[in-house]
């Protein structure tokens, strides 16, 4: 092994590197926690953790000023694995340390997988109405539905990324092209006034002509939501069918006729359809007597599959989710003053078991290690106490 490789190896297996990386992680987490007051929890994760470098905008140029979560986490991971591979010796004195770090490796992997694969949805259930899809809590889609047929709908959905890029969408099921004119991830909607000198509305047809959409900065505050809006022009074979303003409020979800078919166009939370349906039977929301402190929330739900293999009642409440078909359903929220509605959080996380395993490994590992140290300590004390005895 030449000097360079040895230096390289020594660098990656050193405890000094561990300490430095841990210290940097601590600073990163501290800064990210403080910054939550400004950015909110989701933007902080993007800026500090799900990135290789924390960027600081100098003018318009983003400059990396601090290693990000991926960078530090990745290096710590390499350091951890390298140190173990290099120093690995199978002695019982080291089992504790080994188990603890194995648990840590699993935990880090679990978080990486969760970051990569975890999907989060919401499901708003009304009493008595079956639902077989859940909705994304962050992503929207433009849905164009052919509602002509009485027994089924034909839906074409366009993700907002395409709208944002202004990409023209042509789909065999649609007798027109969809041309996004402007997409605002967060918009303020106001009724148009008739004052003179106003620029003309982008919308040329539909209820959107009376409403102005102005772009607003995205918000990440927990008590605020973004209201997206899009101006789309539909272009048929004979030319433009007009530009419409579409936004997720009832007025701006519009119905129109083209080519003898009735179409419905709506901007809505992106949907994920499921091979089963949930029906809310009863939502319960108890408070402590004489207060408005919530005591518990629970939803009794009827779970059915089209093939009839599953047809049963389940109870979802705080700290007791339903796990079914790779998804987990949690009691998340409710609508103030409406006890006929429940809101469930739906999560797909294939690696959800890893933290449980790693918790056990780390606990056992640390207990083993410290017990070994402790017995060693007491043995030494006993030995050193013997000569002192009279």
């Amino acid at each position, binding site marked *: 092994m030449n000097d360079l490789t040895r230096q390289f190896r020594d660098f990656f297996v*050193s*405890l*000094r590197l*561990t*300490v430095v990386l*841990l210290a940097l*992680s*601590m600073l990163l*987490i*501290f800064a990210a*926690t*403080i910054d*939550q*007051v400004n950015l909110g*929890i989701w933007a902080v*994760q993007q800026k500090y*953790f799900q990135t290789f470098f924390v960027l600081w905008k100098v003018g318009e140029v983003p400059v990396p000023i601090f290693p990000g979560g991926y960078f530090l986490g990745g290096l710590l991971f390499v350091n951890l694995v390298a140190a173990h591979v290099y*120093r690995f010796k199978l002695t019982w*004195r*080291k089992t*504790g*340390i080994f188990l603890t770090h194995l648990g840590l490796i699993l935990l880090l992997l*679990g*978080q990486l997988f*969760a970051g990569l694969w975890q999907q989060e949805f919401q499901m708003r259930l009304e009493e008595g109405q079956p639902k077989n899809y859940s909705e994304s809590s962050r992503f929207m889609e433009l849905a164009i539905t052919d509602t002509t047929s009485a027994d089924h709908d034909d839906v074409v959905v366009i993700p907002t990324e395409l709208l944002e890029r202004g990409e023209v969408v042509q789909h065999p099921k649609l007798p027109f092209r969809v041309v996004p004119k402007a997409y605002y991830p967060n918009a303020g909607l106001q009724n148009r006034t008739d004052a003179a000198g106003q620029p003309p509305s982008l919308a040329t047809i539909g209820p959107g002509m009376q409403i102005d959409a102005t772009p607003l900065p995205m918000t990440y505050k927990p008590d605020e939501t973004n209201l997206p809006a899009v101006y789309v022009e539909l272009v048929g074979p004979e030319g433009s069918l007009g530009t419409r303003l579409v936004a997720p409020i009832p007025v701006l979800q519009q119905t129109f006729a083209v080519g003898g078919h009735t179409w419905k166009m709506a901007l809505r939370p992106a949907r994920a359809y499921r091979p089963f349906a949930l029906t809310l039977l009863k939502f319960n929301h108890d*408070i402590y*007597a*004489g*207060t408005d*402190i*919530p*005591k*518990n*929330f629970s939803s009794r739900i009827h779970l059915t599959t089209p093939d009839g293999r599953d047809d049963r009642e389940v109870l979802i409440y*705080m*700290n*007791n*989710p339903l796990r079914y078909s790779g998804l*987990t359903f*949690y009691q*998340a929220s409710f609508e103030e003053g409406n006890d006929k509605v429940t809101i469930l*959080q*739906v*999560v797909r*996380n294939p690696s*959800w078991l890893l*933290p449980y395993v*790693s*918790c056990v490994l*780390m*606990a056992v590992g*640390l*207990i083993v290690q*410290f017990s070994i*140290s*402790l017995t*060693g*300590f007491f043995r*030494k*004390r006993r030995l050193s106490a013997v000569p002192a005895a009279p």
Partner: protein
Amino acid sequence: MKKTIPWLVLLATLALVGVSLVPPHNPAEFDVTGFGRLPVLVNGRIKPFDTVARTSLLQFQGRWSVTAPNGSELTPEEWLLDVMFSGTVADAYQTFEIVHPDVLALFSLKPEDGAGKKRFSFVQLEKNLTELERQYKLAEPVESAVRSSFQKAVIQLYNSLVLYQRLQHSLVPPDSEDFLAELMSFQKALPAGVAAMRAKQAGQPFDEAAANQVTAIGEKFMQLENYGYLLAIPPEAGAKDPTAWSKPGSALLETFASGRINPSVLTYAAFARTWRQHQPAQFNELVALYRDALQKRFAPQLVKCDVEVRFNSADPFWTSMLVYIGAFLLALFSWLKWPEVLGRSAFYVVALAWLLATAGIVTRMWLEGRPPVTNLYSSALFVGWGAVALCLVLETIFKNAIGSVAAGLVGFSTLLIAHYLSFSGDTLEMMRAVLDSNFWLATHVVVVATGYAATFLSGFLALIYIFRGVFTRSLDKATADSLARMVYGIVCFATLFSLVGTVLGGIWADQSWGRFWGWDPKENGALIIVIWNAIILHARWGGLVKQRGLMCLAVFGNVVTSWSWFGVNMLGVGLHSYGFMDAAFWWLVAFVASQLVIIGLANLPLEKWRSFQGPTVATPPMRGPMAKAPA
């Protein structure tokens, strides 16, 4: 003699503690303690009047004692009885603490006008209430994190005054001279009155006087219903929901339908009459009779109320705090003189204070039916308790009074913090839905709090090392080595508990809202403690720090832990910031600054350390029995 002195010290302390446990007695001929044990439902919990009195007084003025204008001392129960039954008398008691000069200016008051230069009576504040309300309405919409100290003071005073007036409207109308008599005549007039009202509504001729009498008293009932604070009226026998206690106002409004006045309401009206007209014999008889009546259906609740009142009056945490000071001083002196006698005495005294705190915590757990840590207040109790328990273990092993000094210090400071946290209201709160899980409260929360306790303890032990080393000549090599071993052992313990506790927290989050880790401030705080402990261990294993470096890192652990414990609550974001408090912010800053100064002190060159000057210079080596680097 050497053997007996520690026992004598223990006996003396035991006697002091015993005095605090003596049951409360009635200061005059009224059975006010008996009244104080009666149950009411407030904030979702059935509690005795005594607790209502004490928590209200703490909120108003930060202390329990009340001095009447004539100089006599009142117990909290007597004060509450005056508030509820003879309002004008209570209005003259100086029980509202105002220290902000601008708030005083609102009322054209000077500190000299108040008791102790800061406590004022309702009478003194009454005339400018409209201006206070106007200021409150200006301050209230401001986000709590950016309110000025004046706005905070206005809001606090306003809330206190609102609570005070609601207490006055809780059982009987404050302006009724004899509410019982009014109720009696109401009962007689009720059939005629109801008939008159029905006739009036039907547009038929009716007895106007009878109708007016019923309407007038009905308005009083409405007032009690709207402003009342205490749910003092137990559900009637056979009621479907045993927790459906109600305000006297709503129970009285039901009279119009039932035609019969609720007996509990009548009892409280009778209490009011006997208290106002100074009839102790009848008052005491009422206490006994009403208790008997409740005994049939609410026996378990009455037992809890009795225990809670005893607990309140014994105030074990306060006593324990004082005993910790004694233990601290004893242990400190043991380093100067009679190490064996004083050291052993200190150990006994620490053990006693700890047992007392244990009893207090167990009582709280039983009252609440919960694991020990449910809110910020109880976390302070538990962190102190856990740290002192570790100190007792250390002291049994090392017998050099270091454990006792640390125990005295940590025990005292955590209980002092708890004392200040208790001003925000009743510390036995109901758990919000998402936290309502005894399993996770007992595992995650307790384990994490133990981790906090151990991290703090290692920091306090390091403080002892630095202070003894820099300022005294007493840090010899043996002491330095044993301190280093203690700190290392406690850091190991802290790592285990904070790591496991934090991961358990993640699992709880996965169970309740579907994600293991969300970078929530409280989670981050816990994670930072884990990382810091890991840094200490790895730095030591890698030989990056020696004894002194270890101590500096451990002291910085105090900074990290205090930030995670209190600092994140001050950010005002996140799902489980369980107690927002900002007066404490400056204390946190001061604490952090002091720790940084001490770290600076520890970095003085060794020849400036008094212990390492002179003939017995010993550079502290780092090779204890547990120092072998395992990785």
